């Protein structure tokens, strides 16, 4: 009985050339002895252990020989420069594959590297400052409510005096203020009231003038401001004598003392800096304004050292001030982490794992390219056979094909990386639009500069892509090559597309069918958003969001309550309305808390009677709701279609009346008369509607004027409460060009109250442009992906069909010689690839139908079903286009071709 087979296989694989036989003999002999003395199981076990020992010894010896070069040539495959040279030659020789495969891999690498860089910015941000990783944030964490406590003025002063492990401890607070450079022009800026030490922490010197210094922090010191490069450029026209000029920040005059260099936005995304002058004596502990605290780790100190010192200080504070500090725990962290405290541990891991989706995309595209490369390798079968016959091992041939794919991948990576920077700039702009509440900006460390980690990740992606696209087909084409050589069947059609390739073709055809449909729906949404007819001349309106500094309001009314603030704000906005209405360019002014075309959020409502069953039985009727000035529809010149409009008496809280729009009547009431019926909130996305509150009577019906909830256009209107609301949107009907009215609007507001901030001044027909731009970004991305998938898919089908023809040329020739109809022969040859394409189209069509109709098949309208069928037919025709050339080639095959093929 011989030694276990696996031990023999292992020895054969690892033994140096020419040594496998005698080592196997030793193992067999030893095994024979063991079998004579012990049970078969124990003998096998001991022989297995000895085989592993031998393998280990062989590996050690091989490594030693490799180092000293004394044990002859290793049998491991090596990729040489020649392989890369051959790879380049192949790129030139097969330009179609180079273009299609390279483009596809470049796209996959572009998406992969771009996603990685973007996620890295969120999960492990790097500060683009000198030794930025040593800048830290310090804060109090309230364990009783599990959130940061920013009212830490007293602690800040204590820490600044006591902390030895952090240098230049400083603090800041965010302020939104109007910057008034010249009379009649006020624009909001993002201001940081900040400690002088901030500029030492950032290690950035002013571009002009000086930074804030400690003396500026005294209450009696003159008011000064340091401006950012962008403010200097846009508001001061790059004035070289800006230092010393006086500007107003809100209502207070300040002297400009310095300009920071381009790109400096520390501590977050700030335009200008004034000294922090908060005095702890003015506030009790855990009272006063919120501040953020920062500093730089002292030399040779780690975060843990700082935390240890903070723990001591925290314990002392808890003992000294138990009433306020019992639940407070001081914390230190890398500076950017203080903004994203949830992005740690599992959450960060979960976020980074979305890279896996991108890897799937790469794997899919790699598999597609592999399909093409397999078809190419199959056409080179003769070359591979010759190389094998001349002594090239299987691994050597695989290494060569891998090198060829790597050359293609490297070129694709260069193209992909070049695109990442561009795409990242785009994505960051979109992120600012989407996540930073309109006018906000991303923190300064969000830049489109590529990190070394991303470059490394790209290299890994390239190798992975090359491994999939090169090694998989190589393994397939070289499998059993020795046997085929012995049977003289190599090069005569022994290769077949297996199950994996069938799956690849089916999946890619399914995606080919799905992606254009998704692009179509997205594009339809964008067109709908852009062409949304709001039922009035919105291009004649200017919209603006009005906000007021709380501090300035308190100064004006000497009452710090919210009610007083809202009242003051209401008076201010009414005064602005009065002044604007007096301008000859203005026809009328009105207010709302949500502008037409913008997303309103959704609310689940119910009616007292008459409502049709909702389409979604779980969530019920979901509609938009907004509050408007009583004269809103008059100003919009939008008619009341039934019932009545609002009047001033409706603004008192007991009135409880609403006006619904026509889509509401159609969607919720099935077209029945809504007047006199009542509705109430059941649940909702917005905070006002969580308890099934009071009933509201429907008193009027208007047209569709741009209420958007994400669930259709059904919506209703409340009258704005008489007590005021903050912030609020103003819509101004102007004569002439709406866009050119903005400076007049700003000047009027400034003349009335410098503390009143005007955000997002845009013509009303452009308010949804940011959302449209975001959707267009996704559409462009999807269109790129669609194009890649389509090209790859068609190339894949073409390759599969060409492959079938080239493999079976002899068979076709013989059949034709025997009198078979060439068309029937071609059909028989193409049955398999056509079945694969058919399966793919079926799967893709099912996906599209699923997307259109949702899970409930009853919702699929006959018209939609017809559209889907027509689309499936169209995609079948598109896919069959790829079959034309191979089919023609197959039909042209004559018996003489078969003979030539054999020769």
């Amino acid at each position: 009985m011989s030694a276990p087979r696996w031990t023999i296989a292992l020895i054969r694989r690892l033994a140096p050339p020419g040594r496998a036989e005698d080592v196997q003999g030793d193992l067999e002999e030893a095994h024979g002895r063991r079998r004579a003395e012990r049970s078969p199981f124990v003998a096998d076990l001991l022989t297995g252990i000895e085989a592993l020992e031998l393998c280990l010894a062989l590996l050690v010896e091989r490594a030693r020989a490799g180092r000293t070069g004394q044990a002859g040539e290793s049998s491991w495959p090596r990729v040489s420069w020649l392989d890369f040279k051959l790879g380049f030659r192949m790129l030139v020789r097969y330009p179609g594959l180079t273009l299609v495969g390279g483009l596809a891999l470049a796209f996959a690498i572009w998406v992969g590297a771009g996603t990685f860089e973007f996620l890295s910015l969120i999960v492990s941000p790097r500060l683009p400052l000198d030794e930025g990783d040593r800048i830290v944030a310090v804060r109090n964490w309230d364990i009783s409510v599990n959130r940061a406590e920013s009212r830490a003025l007293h602690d800040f002063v204590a820490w600044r005096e006591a902390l030895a492990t952090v240098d230049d401890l400083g603090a800041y607070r965010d302020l939104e203020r109007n910057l008034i450079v010249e009379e009649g022009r006020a624009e909001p800026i993002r201001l940081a009231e900040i400690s002088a030490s901030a500029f030492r922490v950032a290690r950035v010197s002013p571009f002009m003038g000086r930074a804030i210094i400690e003396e500026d922090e005294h209450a009696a010191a003159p008011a000064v401001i340091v401006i950012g490069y962008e403010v200097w450029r846009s508001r001061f026209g790059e004035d070289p004598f800006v230092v010393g000029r006086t500007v107003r920040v809100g209502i207070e005059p300040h002297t400009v003392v310095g300009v920071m260099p381009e790109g400096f936005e520390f501590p977050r995304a700030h335009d200008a800096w004034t000294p922090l002058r908060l005095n702890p004596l003015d506030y009790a502990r855990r009272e006063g304004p919120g501040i953020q605290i920062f500093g730089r780790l002292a030399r040779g100190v780690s975060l843990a050292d700082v935390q240890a010192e903070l723990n001591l200080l925290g314990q002392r504070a808890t003992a000294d001030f138990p009433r306020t500090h019992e639940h407070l725990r001081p914390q230190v962290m890398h500076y950017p982490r203080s903004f994203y405290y949830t992005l740690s541990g599992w959450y960060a891991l979960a976020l980074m794992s979305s890279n896996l989706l991108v890897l799937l995309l790469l794997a899919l595209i790699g598999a597609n390219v592999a399909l093409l490369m397999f078809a190419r390798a199959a056409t080179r079968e003769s070359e591979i056979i010759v190389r094998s016959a001349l002594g090239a091992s299987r691994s050597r041939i695989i290494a060569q094909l891998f090198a060829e794919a790597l050359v293609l991948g490297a070129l694709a990576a260069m193209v992909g990386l070049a695109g990442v920077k561009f795409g990242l700039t785009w994505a960051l702009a979109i992120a600012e639009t989407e996540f930073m509440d309109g006018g906000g900006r991303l923190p300064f460390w969000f830049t489109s500069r590529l990190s070394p980690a991303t470059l490394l990740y790209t290299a890994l992606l390239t190798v992975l892509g090359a491994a999939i696209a090169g090694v998989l087909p190589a393994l397939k084409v070289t499998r059993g090559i020795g046997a085929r050589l012995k049977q003289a069947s190599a090069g005569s059609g022994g290769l077949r597309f297996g199950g994996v390739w069938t799956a690849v073709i089916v999946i890619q055809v399914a995606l080919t069918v799905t992606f254009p449909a998704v692009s179509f729906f997205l594009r339809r949404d964008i067109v709908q958003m852009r062409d949304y007819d709001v039922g009035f001349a919105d291009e004649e309106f200017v919209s603006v969001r009005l906000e007021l500094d709380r501090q300035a309001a308190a100064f004006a009314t000497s009452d710090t309550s919210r009610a007083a603030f809202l009242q003051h704000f209401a008076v201010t906005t009414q005064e602005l309305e009065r002044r604007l209405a007096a301008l000859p360019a203005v026809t009328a002014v009105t207010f709302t808390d949500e502008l037409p075309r913008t997303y309103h959020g959704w609310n689940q409502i119910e009616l007292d009677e008459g409502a049709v069953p909702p389409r979604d039985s779980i969530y019920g009727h979901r509609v938009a709701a907004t509050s408007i000035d009583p004269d809103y529809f008059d100003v919009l010149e939008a008619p009341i279609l039934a019932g009545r409009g609002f009047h001033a008496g409706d603004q008192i809280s007991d009135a409880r009346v609403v006006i619904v729009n026509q889509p509401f009547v159609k969607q919720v009431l099935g077209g029945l008369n809504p007047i006199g019926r009542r509705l109430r909130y059941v649940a909702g996305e917005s905070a006002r509607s969580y308890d099934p509150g009071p009933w509201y009577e429907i008193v009027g019906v208007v047209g569709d004027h741009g209420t958007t909830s994400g669930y259709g256009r059904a919506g209703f209107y409340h009258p704005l409460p008489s007590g005021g609301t903050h912030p609020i949107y103003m819509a101004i009907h102007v004569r002439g060009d709406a866009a050119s009215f903005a400076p007049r609007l700003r000047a009027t507001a400034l003349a009335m109250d410098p503390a009143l901030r005007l955000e997002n001044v845009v013509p009303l027909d452009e308010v949804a442009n940011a959302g449209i731009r975001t959707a267009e970004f996704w559409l462009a991305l999807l269109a790129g992906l669609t194009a890649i998938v389509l090209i790859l898919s068609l190339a894949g089908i073409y390759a599969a069909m060409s492959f079938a023809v080239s493999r079976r040329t002899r068979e076709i020739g013989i059949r034709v010689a025997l009198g078979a109809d060439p068309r029937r022969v071609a059909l028989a040859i193409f049955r398999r690839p056509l079945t694969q394409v058919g399966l793919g189209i079926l799967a893709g069509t099912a996906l599209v139908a699923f997307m259109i109709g949702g899970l409930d098949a009853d919702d699929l309208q006959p018209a939609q079903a017809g559209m889907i069928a027509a689309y499936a037919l169209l995609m079948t025709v598109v896919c069959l286009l790829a079959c034309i050339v191979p089919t023609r080639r197959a039909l042209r095959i004559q018996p003489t071709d078969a003979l030539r093929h054999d020769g």
Partner: protein
Amino acid sequence: MTQKRAIPDSLAEFELLVMLAALRLGADEAYTVSIADDITERTGRRVRRANVYTTVQRLEAKGLVSTRLGEPRPERGGRPRRLVVVEPEGMAAVRATTTAINAMVGGLGGIIGEAG
């Protein structure tokens, strides 16, 4: 151009054991399995054949032994043995090593006891 290999002054302990076993078994019987058996039989220590194999490889690389394939044998699944032949350089190395050991052991009989 062939570079003449310098004769090593001495062998490591296990190398010496392998060389001595190969000398004792002779050019027609010395191969991995028999060498391992011989060392085990004479010294009482358990010898792994993998160690013998790598040691022979190393000695061959140093030019102290050479190997050749014997005849296929049925008890080895029809596979040949790789027979080990001690080269003159190997003999010289064995001599030098044993001489050095004897010189060092000389006069210490009373302390370490008589060598078996």
